[in-house]
């Protein structure tokens, strides 16, 4: 369990360093950086490389935004195995739903509770 915490810290930190390098060295905006990371996550899962990383680093791989791309591909592939090619479209948000629905729900609650600051 301790090893898990350690590797979650290291791997999660390293993914963030990659993001920081994209922002600082290649002078990308945060939006571009996050988009690139999501696409990279999707590509890595396409080659079956992201799942071992999750097994190894746990939350260190599931918390960074790269796991969003991974989860999208994963849901699509899962459904595609069950229902053929149409599953690619229908299963896309099967796994990711938590992140987006949580962001929408809590975003709205946040808008109700908090006021913007000048």
């Amino acid at each position, binding site marked *: *369990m301790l090893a*898990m915490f350690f590797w979650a810290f290291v791997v999660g930190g390293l993914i963030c360093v990659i993001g920081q390098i994209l922002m600082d060295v290649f002078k990308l905006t945060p939006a571009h950086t996050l988009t690139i990371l999501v696409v990279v996550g999707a590509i890595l899962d396409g080659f079956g490389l992201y*799942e*071992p990383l999750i*097994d*190894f680093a746990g939350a260190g791989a599931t918390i960074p935004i790269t796991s969003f791309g991974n989860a999208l591909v994963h849901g699509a592939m899962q459904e595609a195995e069950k229902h053929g090619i149409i599953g690619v479209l229908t299963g896309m948000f099967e796994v990711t739903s938590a992140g987006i629905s949580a962001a929408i729900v809590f975003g709205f*609650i946040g808008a109700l509770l908090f*006021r913007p*600051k000048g």
Partner: protein
Amino acid sequence: MAARQPFPGFAEIHKTNGLMEMKKWWLAAVAAIIATSGCAKEETEQKQSLQRANLLRTHTSGTAKHAELNQGPAERAVAYLRQRDDVRDVVAVNSGDRLLVAYQIPHMKRWSRKQIEKDIDHKLRDMFPGYDVVSSSDLKIFWKTKELKANMDNPRWDERKFNQEIRRIEKLSKEQT
């Protein structure tokens, strides 16, 4: 921006007045209800599992069959997995027709977790053809199996309860996403 109050969000809610205030509180109340109902579900879930535990513990079955199952297959499975170098810890339990094996993979070998899982599953199926083998490297399944094994010495557990619990863990291990 400079001298900001520590919790400006809350502080400013109090500052508004009149109709706006009522509206705001109404909205806050809705949000609170949403939040608490979300939590309430979790609470009942927890309560249920607690109740279940209590039921099991207070259940006095003087007449019921004692869960005296031959744990030979489970012990053989443990002995086999212990000698593998890609298994760090293992616990196994079996009922009449089911064999539940939970193990932990050493951390540096978790990269190839899927292959190890597949390999162990195949080996165990070959070793115990008469059993419905469920094997998992998941930590939760490991905890649950350990708990079940500890409860086997409990005289208040009868075989039916025991089988039920095995099936519950099996279902949990098959869950995806």
